[in-house]
Structures are given as structure tokens and as C-alpha cells.
């Protein structure tokens, strides 16, 4: 039963308040994109065993989407940040690197 802090309203929300939304920072490909680009956008997922950036909605709270940096092997949470960004902010990257020195970084 995860606890994630909603960066919008500051609530430490339990999993039952939240709706998961899959891998974060996907770039949308629409008309004009190649089959490969569109397939990757739809289906290719990093699915890492380790540091993962994923979307959550505070569905039964403030309703806002945010992104969590979380380890899928230990469920450790490195931080959360609003979804209105195309890549993880530096302080989150730093927080991950502090606790996972061997982490290859966000790609």
C-alpha cells in the first residue's frame, strides 16, 4: 500500500486515493509520425527493475496528475513532482542519484 505525496496539495496520499497512469514523460506522436514512432509511443515501455518515473492522479483528492520517481524493486520513493514537465526536474534527479549512486540517469 504505497504512500505518495501529492506535490499539488501536499497530502501524503495512500494508494487507494490515487490512480496510476503508467510511464511518464512519453512524447505523443500523432498524424505524420512513422509507424515505428507511433508504436513506440503506444507500447514501448521502459519497465525497469529499479528507478522508474510514473504518472499518478490524486483521483480521490485534488484530482491533479503528478509524477513519482519510484524504485520498482523496493518501492522506495525518491520524490514526486507536478506532471507539467517534459522531463524530471533536477532536484528529483539529484535525489535519485544520492540514494542510487549507480543509477544510469534519466534517458
Amino acid at each position, binding site marked *: *500500500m*504505497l*504512500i*505518495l505525496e501529492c506535490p499539488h496539495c501536499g497530502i501524503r496520499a*495512500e494508494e487507494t486515493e490515487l*490512480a496510476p*497512469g503508467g510511464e511518464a514523460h512519453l512524447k*505523443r*506522436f*500523432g*498524424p*505524420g*509520425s512513422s*509507424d515505428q514512432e*507511433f508504436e513506440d509511443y*503506444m507500447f514501448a515501455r521502459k519497465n525497469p527493475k529499479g528507478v522508474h518515473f510514473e*504518472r499518478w*492522479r490524486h*483521483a480521490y483528492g485534488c*484530482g*491533479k*496528475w503528478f509524477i513519482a520517481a519510484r524504485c520498482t524493486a*523496493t*518501492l*522506495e*520513493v525518491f520524490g514526486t513532482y507536478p*506532471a*507539467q514537465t517534459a522531463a524530471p526536474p533536477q532536484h528529483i534527479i539529484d535525489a535519485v542519484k544520492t*540514494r542510487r549512486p549507480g543509477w544510469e540517469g534519466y534517458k
Partner: protein
Amino acid sequence: MSTRLSCGGRLIDRRAPRDFSFNGKKMRGFLGDTLASALLANDQMLVGRSFKYHRPRGIVAAGPEEPNALVGLGVGSRFEPNQRVTTTELFQGLTATSQNHWPSLEYDVGVVNNYAARFLPGGFYYKTFIHPRFAWKHVFEPIIRRSAGLGKAPIDRDADRYEQAYDFADVLVIGGGVAGLQAALVAGRSGARVLVLEQTAHWGGRAPVDEAEIGGLTADEWIRNAVEALEGMQNVTLRLRTMGAGVYDHGYVLAEERIADHTPADGRPRKRLWRIRAAKVIAAQGAIERPLSFAGNDVPGVMLAGSVRDFVVNHAVAPGDRTVVVTNNDDAYRTAILLVEAGLSVPVVLDARAAADGELPRRARAMGIRVETGRGIASVKGGKRVTGVAVCAQAGQGAVLETIACDSVAMSGGWSPIVHLWSHCGGKLIWDEVNAHFRPDPDRPPTGQDGQGIVVTAGSASGALTTDAVLRDATNAAGGTDAPEAAVPQEAPVAAIWVMPQGAGPELRAKMWLDYQNDVKVSDVQLAAREGYTSVEHTKRYTTLGMATDQGKLSNINGLAVLSQALSIDIPQVGTTTFRPPYTPVTLGALAGEARDDIFQPLRRTPMHEWHEAHDVEWEPVGLWRRPYCYRRPGETSHQAVMREVSNTRTNVGLLDASTLGKIIVKGPDAGKFLDMLYTGMMSTLPVGKCRYGLMCNEQGFLSDDGVVARIDEETWLCHTTSGGADRIHAWMEDWLQCEWWDWQVFTANVTEQYAQVAVVGPNARKLLEKLGGMDVSKETLPFMQWQDGTLGGFRARVYRISFSGELSYEIAVPANEGRAFWDACVAVGAELGAMPYGTECLHVMRAEKGFIMIGDETDGTVIPQDLNLGWAISKKKADYLGKRGQERAFLASPDRWKLVGLETLDGSVLEDGAYAPAEGLNANGQRNTQGRVTSTYFSPTLGRGIAMGLVLRGPDRMGEVVEFTKLDGSLAKAKIVDQVFYDKEGAKQDV
């Protein structure tokens, strides 16, 4: 025999007798007894039969680790199988029955398995019952199933109720022995919010039984003081009868409180499930004594030495008159000393170690107790009760040196910390050579959301086995420094002795039980190892070791030790199996909580819900809503009711509660642009005051929802969705607005429940509205596909002229709190116009007659709008909309897709729901090829015949062709491909 002693018993109240029955036999115990102690006080040692061999079994332990003594408790709607007598508090009128035997506990036919035991080794069923093929299902499996299983299945619905509650603590202490209490005292004094859980009805755990002395006080005195001090702290909560069941991710803890288990039918919930969030969990659950593996260690009367003490001290019950103590450690001498002090006989202490020079053995010898070192038990005599033991040298192969008569055996193989809560979430263990047990490795705790440890252990749960060490460890665990002193005798270390005697041959090993309940013996584990099931998980699963209802609390370590010896590797290399929640079994009813029957799930009600209920409604669940399926008049079938509703709506006027329809307001400077992305059609160009039908697709291109969009003002649109789709579509909109187009200025609001909505449908619809009065609803003022605000019959109303039936139709939204009154008004004024309410099925028939699609019927998540001939609702001008790219993919853009058509059976019958149209030939896998399927099929009362829609391969190009559709009876129905619109193709009726 086992008896009640004439004095003592710290937990029982001899002035409060309690009558109970066991297998119909009347018995008496005292308040404070467990069912186990009360049975023993009545000399009922034999309490059940084992799982596989149906061997007679008695009480082995005094706590939740008990593997044998499980009974059926209660009767009828309060019957519960597999209740552990050692954790069941005795109450007046308790009824218990023993399990897993026929015809009776004393004479069980199933014991034939015992005589055939040598043919039924671990995993035997994998090697036989293979031929003939049908025999497993029809012969062997039924026999095995009947023979297996433990208690009887309950029959009745549970008469009790359960509740759930949340709690929060800075420090959660699980276990109310001296370790838990000391940890709670330290944490409590620091000002932290502390919650302490104890699974039994008493504080203090084993310390009083072991006659510990703490800070110069007896254990009982120290415990009393500690509990008083804790009760005096505002920041501390104490809960008895509450078992810490499991530690879950991010420090979520489940606990089960037994509220009315011992006071059945007193009106309180039987159990309460606690969901606890704690910053820190201190697991102080203690330790469990291990049995020793010697032949006949399962004969009733063989008990754990510590449990014998429990019964004597707590309940003044002696399991036997003459008790042989057998041990590999000093602690068991406490049992010998206690029994002799209680006036009972201990003919011998058999100590498998070469020497026994600790303080306790010396004291025992000084009392005149015979102590034999280097000795073990070759075998236990007796069947349904111990009659004696054959003594042998531990070092040998079991040659009998002497036989000693006794009626009970107290055994001790050392103590293992209870590591369950530590391990549930990934805490690791290390092997402690000195104490011969696995204990938590403090350097590798289970971790929480910040990556830090979430559980610490305290006391014997950490592996501390003497009272002074327990108190020091508990103090440290809670962050304190000053532990009370405890006077403890010097104890010599345990010897890592598992099997007795060391050189026991196969005959003996086949009678040494590791897992009592599942009948797993030393020989079974050795067989598993020999056959290559060498991973500890393989051994466990092959032999079923540790998989019984005690989950291996007594058997796991012994099993690992036997496996390690068989494989000639060290125990740590063998490793342990995974500890899974719960610590002890938790009632399913408690896990489900109060959500049963009518409140099983939330029920969403429209403002008109009660009216429907009062008018012969037949409900249909739609998500959490219930919608009227039809209104059945007396004497009508559902089908007749639907037919009447259709005919009446088409000839007079019908009223539909459409309040469940999703209503989402989309507003802002970029709202038009946003809706153009969301819908396949163009919404930004919709003029204010007008309505437009829209389709929404997911990014794959598949149709996901539809509905009418109304332009409210320059910056505001109102989007109708399907009843089931409102929340999903609102979330979908927010997803795109927040995560993709966050710079677009758009607000959304799901106002579904703010409005009640009534569809007034049929030729008399306008008349009905005119009778309500207040608005000009004429064709000129309010033409088809437009909307207007106004007042109808005094109600503030927004009136949409839209139609899902093909009839003249208005949908009127009024504020939700006026919905019922508005509905009543419509019913009242409609009476003389022939108005009748109609339900969802009538709605479906009418829309099918008109060839309108229904999300969920014509669509199933694999259908694109183009398949449904809805190209007209897809804007050709837009560069992009959600789903557009997906629809361009090869398979979706193929000309060979199945497309929507109407289907008319040649004989007028109704095609079957879900029918497929077979095509010629078979595919590569030998399956019949198909060329289409039915998506909607109804009897149309309007046309007097069956009508259907279906998706057919290149269907629209095949008009007039006759295609066959499957029927469940194996025959085929012929249907002609026709236009999907069956009724009023020109749309004249809706546009009047």
C-alpha cells in the same frame, strides 16, 4: 492423565465456572481458561486427527503455533471450522467438535492411511493415479479430496458482522510481553504516540510463566506496574486480543481484533480489522519453541516443554502425572523443576547434550530429579495417549537402553524468534550459530518509502533468549538506554540437535514428525532431497512441509535442518521459505468488513430512484448506478413490459430518467481547440445554442464514448457522455489537459449529479411540455438539435431537442434537487397524454430500430468509427484528433474490416445475441472461418419482427445478400443484409 491442579493458575478464576461441550460431552472449565487448558483439565488429550494419515493427535502447544488441536466451533450460522483450541478463550456454552475423522474421533476409518503410510510417502500422488486417464478425476481425486480438508465447510450465511478501523501511531508495538511493554514504556515516555497490540487477552507474555524477576519484582508485579504506567499515558493506546497480522509495503500494518469471539451474539461486531500506519513498527512477538524429531513425537501427550509450563502456571493444568522431559537445552529444565514443585512426577530428564552443567540442570539434580545426558528418545510408546518412552543413546542408532513409563513427554528443541512481521516486507535473516536459529539481521530491515527500515524487533523476536537480554534489546529498539535489570540463571548453550537419535534408521525416521498437521516426517524431507527437490521451496511444496494452517511455525526450522543434513550443506545455505501474511489466519469476513449485502458497493441513486422503486421497477446495474430496465405491471413479463413501453412511446409519449447520462462542462479560451482534439468531429465551430453528436476515441483509434455536445456560450461547452462513461471521460479530459496540453486554458467540471435529466419522448412530447408551460418549445423556436434555457412548469430547465429514439424528443435538465418534483409533474400532466415511464431496454429497442449505435454493444474496444459508418462524424478538415494516427495503421485502415449493417431474418425471427456468421472453410488452426457477428438484436414491436445490427465483412457492399448466423442449438439462421436504419429512415418523425 491430564488434570486440574488443586491450587494456582494465574489466569483462571475458580469462582467463575464455565460449562462447555466437546463432541457432545459436557465439560467444565473456568473463566480465564483457553479451550485447550479446559480440555486438558477434563483429561481430553486426544482432540483431532491428522491431515493425511488420520493419526490421533493431541495438544502440542499453548499458543498460535499449535498444529494439531483444531476444532469446529459453534453451530449453524456461527459455526467455524479449524479453530485453534489454544487461542480460543473459554466461554459459557461453548460447543466444540473434533475434525477430520469418520465415524468418530476415537475410531476413525481414515486411519487406514496410517497403516499404509509406507506406501504414501511425501509426494506419492505425483507418482501414481496416472492410469487410466479418467480415473484421476472420477476415482482418485474424489477420494483424496474427501480424505483431505480439515474442518467441515460452514453452510449458513455468517450471523456475525465485522468492522474495520484505521489507526495511526508514531510507534506501533506488536506483542505485549515484557519486551513489548518495555519498548512501549520507553517510547511512551518520549512523548511519541504509541499503540501496543497483544494477541492474547493478557499482558506479559511468557515472563511470569518462566518466573522471571525484573528490577527486584516478580514478573507479574512488574507487568502490572508497566501496564498501569502505560494506561496513565495519554499518548499510549493498549489493545488486547489484537493480532498483528501483516506488514505491507510502505509500513502499512493489518491487525485483527477479536471483540466478541468469546462473547458470541452479544450484539458487538465479532472482529475488527485495524489498518494501521505507523512511522515505526516494533515487532516484539517473542519466540516459538521447537519440537525434537524422535519416533512417535506426535503421540497425544507429547508436548512442548514451555507449553507444559504455560498450562501449569497459567491454568493450573497438568498435562500428565508422570512427565519425561527431553531436551537439547537448559530451558526445558524449568519444566522439570516446575512439575516437581507442583507435586508431579518427572521420572527423567533426557538431555541429548553430552553434559548439562548449567544452573538449571544443577538445580534440577539438587531437587532429586534424574538427569541423563547424551540420551534421547528412541520411540514413544502408546497410540491415543503416551504410555512410556524407550530411551536410547543420542549418538547411536536407537538401541533401547531402558523403557520408562510416563503419560506425557515435554520436549524442547530450542527457541526460534518469530520473524514473520520482520520478513513480510523483505526483512532479511541471519543464522545464529550460538542459539541455533534464524534471527532478523538488523542491517537488512524491510524498507519503506524513504528507503529506511520500517520494522525493528525487540526481545526474543530479535533472538534475545534471557529476560535481561530481552529487556535490554527492547529498550534499545525503542531508542532508550536504561533497561531494568533482571535476575537470570546462567544457561548453557543449546546444542544443534534436530533428530533423535543421531543415527536413526529409516524405520525410526518414518515415525518422526516434522509437520504434525500435514503429516510430514523426517523421512519425507530426506526423500525429497534424494529425488532432487533440493531447493527449500521444492522441498516444502513436494512434501507440504510448513503449508498447514500453522504455516510451519513448529516445523520450518526443523525441516530446514533435516534438509541441510540430507544435502550436507549448512543451514544458512538452505535458506528459508518466504514468510507471507498473515501471521495467524484472519477471518475472511473481517477482511471484507462491513460492505455486505445492500451496502456491498456504494449505490448511486438518481433523484427519481424512489419513484421507480415504488412503480414496479426492474433494475439493471449500470456501473454503481441502478437504472430501470423496465416497469413491470402486474401480470406482465419483462419482455411484455418492454414491448408495451416501446409501443406507447412511439404512439403516445414516454418518460425516461436520463439523469445518469454523463454531463461534463468544458470551459475556457482554449475549450474549442481542446474539444476538437478530443472528438473526431469539429466542436469549435458549433454555434452557441446548438447541439452536435460527437465521438471520442482513444489513442489507438478505437471508439470509446459518444454523446451530444451543446455549445452553452462562447467559451463553454457541455459534453454528454454515456452513463457508465462520465467519470472515465472526465478523467481522460483531465489527463490530456494536465499532462499534455497543460498550457491550454481550459477548465472541466463533471456536473453529472448536479442535474436530473428527463427524456420526454414520443409524438405527444411537445404537448406534454406545453401542458407544463413556461417555454415555447415549438419547432420554430426550438428546432431539432438545439437547446434553450427557460422555465417549465415552474422549474428552471435546460431543454435539449435531441433524440435517441427517432421520435420527437426533448431532454430536460433541471437542478438535481428539483428532479423528483419535475418528474412527478411530468407524470401528472402526462397522464392524459398516455405518458408512461420506460426503461433502458425500451431505449435500446428504439435506438436499434433507428440504427443508432450503442457504446458497449456495437463497440467493444476494437471497433473504430469508420467500422460503424460514422465517417460523417469525423472531421476531414482537422490535422489531428485523439485516435487519428491510430486509425491510420494498416490493420485499422484495411478495406477488409467488418462493418456495420442492418440484419433482417428471412423468417422474421430474432437473431441470437452474440451470434457469428460462419464463412467458408477452416483457418490454419482448424477453426471455422467467420465473416461477421451480431452486435444488437431485438424484437421490434414497431415492425413486428426481429431486427438486428451486426458487423459484417465489407458489409455495406453486400446489401441484400443473405448471410447465415449461428444459433446455440447448432442450427443456422438466415438473415439479409440491409440498411441499419429500420424505422423512419428519413428522420421525419424526430424533426417535427
